[in-house]
């Protein structure tokens, strides 16, 4: 491939175990990913597909806490300091701790930014301000169903990064990258760098999308892979994830 691929890989913190989640991160790092997106599991993740929802439920069933999720991210920061970590979660976990404190805690362990899809950019409970205060990014989510008016409104906020969710729907099903999608990406780009994802499963999809975004996001594909290879232990998970990441990054 002529264009270097920048990949943001999604992990569910603590899935399926702390040990195997760390092995998966190792595999992703060896596979050449540029960013980690780490999901802090929430009991009712209504913007995620079945694969990620089951992974979150499985992690929570052993009493997993937000603090343990933060500790997992702190480990990633220590082991892979060259790979920035964005934390993705749902509004209520941040709201319960207090938005300001949540942003402070995130900054403290070296999180680069927060992606919280159910805190819309115009009603974000002070998330953007709290993040700015502590020097991290609040990354809003944009979607193709947005009206021109909302796209303009989003653009006016001047976010450094915007997360583009590329199909009408939820994570985990195949995406076709068509003209409409590319027009949408053009409309929201403005001065922001784009993370573009949802439904990315193979290298050809990545190749199509990569020229139009700052980084391509791949999520369910890794969660599925980690679940499928969990029985093979640390080495199996690490290898399977590394191979898939290499395929997607073209490394």
């Amino acid at each position, binding site marked *: 491939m002529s264009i270097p691929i920048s990949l943001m890989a999604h992990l569910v913190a603590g899935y399926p175990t702390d040990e195997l989640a760390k092995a998966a991160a190792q595999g992703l790092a060896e596979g050449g990913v540029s960013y980690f997106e780490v999901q802090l599991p929430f009991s009712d993740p*209504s*913007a995620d597909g079945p694969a990620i929802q089951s992974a979150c439920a499985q992690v929570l069933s052993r009493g997993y806490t*937000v603090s343990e999720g933060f500790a997992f991210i702190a480990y990633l920061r220590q082991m892979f300091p060259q790979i920035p970590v964005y934390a993705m979660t749902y509004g*209520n976990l941040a709201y319960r701790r207090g938005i300001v404190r949540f942003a402070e805690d995130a900054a403290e362990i070296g999180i680069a930014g927060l992606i919280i899809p159910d805190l*819309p950019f115009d009603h974000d409970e002070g998330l953007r301000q709290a993040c700015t205060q502590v020097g991290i990014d609040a990354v809003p989510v944009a979607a193709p169903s*947005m009206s021109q008016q*909302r796209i303009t409104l989003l653009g006016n906020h001047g976010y450094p990064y915007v997360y583009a969710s590329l199909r009408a*729907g939820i994570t985990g099903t195949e995406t076709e990258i068509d003209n409409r999608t590319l027009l949408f990406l053009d409309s929201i780009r403005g001065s922001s760098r784009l993370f573009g994802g949802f439904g990315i499963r193979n290298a050809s999809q990545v190749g199509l999308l990569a020229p139009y975004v700052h980084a391509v996001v791949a999520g369910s594909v890794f969660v599925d892979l980690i679940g499928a290879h969990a029985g093979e232990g640390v080495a199996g998970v690490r290898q399977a994830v590394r191979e898939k990441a290499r395929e997607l990054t073209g490394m």
Partner: protein
Amino acid sequence: MSTLGYFDRFGGRYVAEILQQPLVELEQAFTEALADPAFLAELVEQQRNFVGRPTPLLYAGNASRELGGPPIYIKLEGMAHTGAHKINNAIGQAMLAKRMGKTRIIAETGAGQHGIATAAACARLGLECVVYMGDTDVRRQQPNVAGMELYGATVVPVHSGAKTLKDAINEAMRDWATHFETTHYLIGSALGPSPFPDIVRTFQSIIGDETKRQMADRGIGGGTLVACVGGGSNAMGFFSTFLDDPSVRLVGVEAGGRGPAIGDHAVRMSGSGAEDGIIHGYKSRFLVDADGQVAPTHSVSAGLDYPGIGPQLAALGERGRVTFTSATDTEALEAVKFFARTEGVMFALESAHAGAAAIRLARQQESDKPIVINMSGRGEKDLFITSPLLRLEEWKEFLESELARIGGAE
């Protein structure tokens, strides 16, 4: 109506960006429909001849005398078609969806009452209907599943999470995020992202409007209105007409379940277990743990077994306009028996929580101001739940003989 989707600090539209525009379109369509005389005329027609309105306001003279307190009246909302107030909202939203050009309806259901109402409304209006229902609920509410399927709906069991109502809501939100161009999400309670709390309350407010007229016809006024509160659709429909009338006291009754321990009840307002939260698209009071994860709940009545409360009721509670109390599983069962024996009226277990609180109030009350209970649903649907509690041995025998009979017919 809400102010830009908020009731004081509660409400809002906390959903993924993908659903923001569909909610804007829904709000516009709802506003236009309410200003269209043809829509309103059709609604009245459906309310009268399909739903069976007005529902009666019954003077419960025997119950009043036995309790030795003020006169008790029962708004027999459970006499509405499909057995509960849910049909008021279901037919209204189904009409709205059809007006918007949607061809497919999705709904969530816990006990199945909202699912039944939605399936019936869709059958009547010729709309495709898919009902999401937690797998646990599918197993324990088979009679309602059978009813929904008879009305032509597809019932989809949800296997994620706790496999109950809250998980059915998540699944319905997911479906809507993928199919909003053809599909309307028909939410059954006065909660969820704006404008749903306004829409549901508006279609349910027929309960309060009728009650006010019926009270005036009987020459009674003031007093106390009592309604059970799960998400809050029957309570908001019953109360909304009276919000500006200070002579009327409004009492909401939550599910006290087995007791005050976490996981044993669904008390959001009258106890100390709830916190402000943002879940299922709206900000309100929720039962959550220290991290903000949704906590388990319990009630003998599936319709009250939900961790959140509609945002307008949360606001009215904090303002002190609505007083909240709770009734336990046992008290609710006793209330079912009491009104069945004294008045020949069988309350649904949900509504029996209101009945139980009314019995308590009547015993304490000195004045002769009336107490009006909203019997939001009738109790026949609960026979599979109440029978094992009230007459276990006979019920076992019945089930065994039925099983033998069906097995023998093969």
